[in-house]
């Protein structure tokens, strides 16, 4: 096999040195009772060429291969990715390196991630960003745990029911064994998290609100900060569409204590939902409570600038059972990708692309309204919005998929059973006016 360099002669010579009569002999320390009698039952190995055919066949069983039009967001967004990014990130010096335990030969990764941390803090207006987390859901769960751990008196965390449904499920999974509890904050008729309901809640350790929320609406984060202050609890915000911060006031400006976000929009392909990029940021006060790796700047013995993994006394490999989290590998290469994306769009590009997303969403919303859809909520949104669809839309939607490979929104019923016939639509910079007009015509 081409990945295995050993020639018969190599094996003979090496066995002699290793002091084993045979390859099987190398496993003599393993009791026979423990060894498997009947090897592995797997498909015949494929050649590189058979593999290509097989994989292309599989890939072609996904609609995506047809280059479809995606008006679905809900945590995974369809944005342009510049050609330079896949090229640069696939350079093996980045892709085939391990976590930078040996900083002298990892400065590329380390400076890159340091720059990532910096650009993320700029994007979010926060003091500190970690070197990445798995995804927004797991990052948000970690934030909830921080809030709960820091608050000796309360054991509940209040979470908006307009936080991404999957993220709420992940929080539940993380909390289940801990005795902590998640309480849901309902939403108002305007599709915003109900501040009054939160006000009324007692002994909670923190509050988590997503903005733009799952309906795409921009929450009044200032109000939540106020309530959090009055309750002396941590204020956590999350988001699934990182590009929103190209135009919206960032979480830091509202005084968020912790921010969990999804960075997939920043140059990372949708890839059926993962790997994405968990963004996790906090205030300096919480520095030592943050989970996962942090890259810091320092000097070498010649006084030259350099970068290292730092504050590892928070981490499992030092603190073991007392660590702030169990995370070890994170989503480093996707963090590097996001850094490349942010450097590529820059201050001008991110603003323009963010605005374009909003422009298209506004256009699509009015086009659909004109086509007989009902705009359900009147709250400001970024690039997603909810519409009540007219009779027979379900069928038209199926047609659109088969005829134009166009996915017209996401049915909200599975997520909010009360919202039958409500769909969540998303428009990004990739959708053309003509596509939107055509859609409106077809569904009218």
């Amino acid at each position: 096999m081409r990945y295995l360099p050993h020639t018969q002669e190599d094996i003979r010579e090496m066995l002699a040195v290793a002091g084993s009569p045979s390859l099987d002999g190398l496993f003599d320390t393993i009791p026979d009772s423990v060894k498997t009698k009947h090897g592995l039952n797997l498909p015949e190995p494929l050649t590189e060429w058979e593999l290509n055919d097989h994989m292309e066949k599989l890939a072609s069983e996904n609609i995506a291969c047809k280059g479809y039009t995606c008006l679905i967001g809900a945590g995974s967004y369809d944005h342009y990715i510049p050609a330079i990014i896949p090229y640069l990130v696939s350079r093996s010096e980045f892709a085939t390196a391990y976590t930078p335990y040996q900083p002298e030969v990892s400065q590329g990764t380390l400076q890159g991630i340091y720059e990532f941390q910096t650009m993320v803090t700029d994007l979010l207006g926060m003091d500190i960003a970690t070197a990445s987390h798995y995804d927004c859901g797991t990052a948000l769960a970690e934030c909830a745990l921080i809030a709960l751990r820091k608050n000796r008196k309360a054991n509940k965390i209040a979470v908006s029911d307009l936080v991404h449904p999957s993220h709420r499920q992940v929080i539940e999974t993380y909390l289940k064994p801990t005795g902590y509890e998640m309480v849901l904050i309902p939403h108002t008729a305007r599709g915003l998290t109900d501040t009054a309901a939160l006000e009324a809640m007692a002994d909670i350790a923190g509050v988590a609100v997503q903005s733009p929320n799952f309906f795409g609406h921009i929450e009044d984060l200032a109000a939540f900060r106020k309530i959090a202050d009055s309750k002396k609890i941590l204020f956590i915000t999350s988001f699934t569409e990182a590009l929103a911060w190209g135009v919206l006031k960032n979480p830091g400006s509202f005084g968020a204590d912790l921010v969990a976000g999804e960075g997939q929009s920043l140059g990372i392909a949708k890839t059926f939902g993962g790997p994405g990029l968990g963004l996790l940021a906090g205030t300096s006060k919480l520095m030592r409570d943050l989970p996962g790796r942090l890259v810091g700047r320092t000097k070498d013995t010649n006084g030259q600038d350099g970068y290292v993994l730092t504050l590892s006394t928070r981490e499992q490999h030092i603190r073991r059972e007392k660590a702030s989290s169990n995370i070890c590998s994170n989503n480093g290469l996707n963090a590097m990708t996001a850094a490349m994306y942010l450097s590529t769009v820059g201050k001008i590009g991110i603003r323009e692309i963010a605005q374009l997303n909003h422009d298209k969403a506004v256009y699509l919303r009015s086009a659909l309204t004109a086509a007989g859809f009902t705009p359900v909520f009147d709250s400001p949104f970024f690039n997603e919005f909810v519409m009540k669809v007219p009779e027979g839309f379900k069928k038209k939607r199926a047609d659109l998929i088969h005829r134009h490979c166009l996915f017209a929104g996401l049915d909200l019923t599975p997520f909010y059973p009360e919202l039958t016939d409500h769909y969540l639509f998303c428009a990004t910079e990739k959708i053309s006016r003509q596509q939107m007009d055509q859609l409106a015509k077809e569904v009218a």
Partner: protein
Amino acid sequence: MTRQPGTKGLIFNEPNVWDKSREGRCAISLPRADVDRAPLDPSLTGEAPNLPQLSELDVVRHYTRLSQWNFGVDSGMYPLGSCTMKYNPKTNEVQAARQGFAGAHPLAGDEFSQGALRLMYDLEKYLAEITGFAGVTLQPAAGAHGELAGMLIIHAYHAKQGKQRSKIIIPDTAHGTNPASATLCGYQSINLKSGPKGILEPEAVAAVMDEDTAGIMITNPNTLGLFEEHIREICDIVHAKGGLVYGDGANMNAIMGVVKPGKVGIDVLHLNLHKTFSTPHGGGGPGAGPVAVTEELIPFLPVPRVEKELDSFRFVSDCPESIGRLHTFYGHFGVMVKAYAYILSMGAQGLLDVSRLAVLNANYIKESLKGTLNLPYDRPCMHECVFNDAHQKKHHITTMDMAKRLLDYGFHPPTVYFPLVVEGAFMVEPTETESKEDIDQFIDAVKAIAKEAQTDPEKLTSAPVLPKVTRLDEVAAARKPCLRG
């Protein structure tokens, strides 16, 4: 001694990316605006984030130069113990990049995602076969995430038995993520010393295992690279007391086709696709940490599960006993594609050969270097072997000094100071994809360094000299953290 790979060359200084920024530049091709501007209410908008403003060439040059400061498996031997830094086949990248996979939206619907679902379903099957378990979830995003999943399953299991337990046994050789993951489930870690042979002794386990102990976390082969020979007895002891056995499968590369953990009494096991199954580590991930379980524990696996009906596949979420959801969507699908491609490329015999040759390489190194470096546990090893700096102490040379000096010789150092049970551990895992010549070169390098330790210790204490930077002040970095520019 053959000529060593390390040498000096021309590379480039490169400032922080924002230092190259000039007002007005933009490296992205801005999409045409074909609809009217729809300004947001000013009360909602903020300043544009202060991102660097560059040309496309600026960006390309910046990251090209940064990449040249890095060491990857493609650059040279990377015998990082416990990390299985094997060759990452390029064809895997081609497969994962296919539009049908990379472009797939997670909520397109089962009907339109059959290729992805089929791949996940079959990959679960293959991993179940390799590990000897009844069920597998691919959802965990990394090894530690898999451990958490496993702990949650054990926790849910005990909850279902009607009585939760408070403790879990963790050997002193365990990876730090093990106790950290246990803590997340509220379990108190009971530290268990391994015996004189570097493996667990059943008596020791029996001594601590009780009805209030949820179970044990065993890494097998353990982080000393030794096979836990008493695994069966240990499992029996734990089971007898109603506990479950968690297996850390990060070292599965040693025993594919030789031992099926699911058949020897282990109840839950996680794998690292970014180790055993050749997916690139990416300088820190993303990886994937699938979890395999016994028949009895399948109901607890995270949702959604992939199920097959006739020849079509769907996600299923109504699993009342499930620990719930661990990832926003289905885990790191892009990583799964690569592991799937690897398994199909290797086949059964290929995976067996992988383990045999990984173990052969490790034992060859162990025998070749045990005169040079101290070998605390001088026994046949599996895929890695752990030395330490005992012989070098007298020259005031540490494992770290030897590691740094290896950089000058052109090798990535082994894992150092882990596992904790070996003071000054120097943990070598060559993997099966390193050739005898490269390994011989590595052996020569270590021997030359050991000689330098006696004759010219300065060379080690002042190493490395070839990389772009010399040793970095980690203490200062932690004392006054500078985490952003």
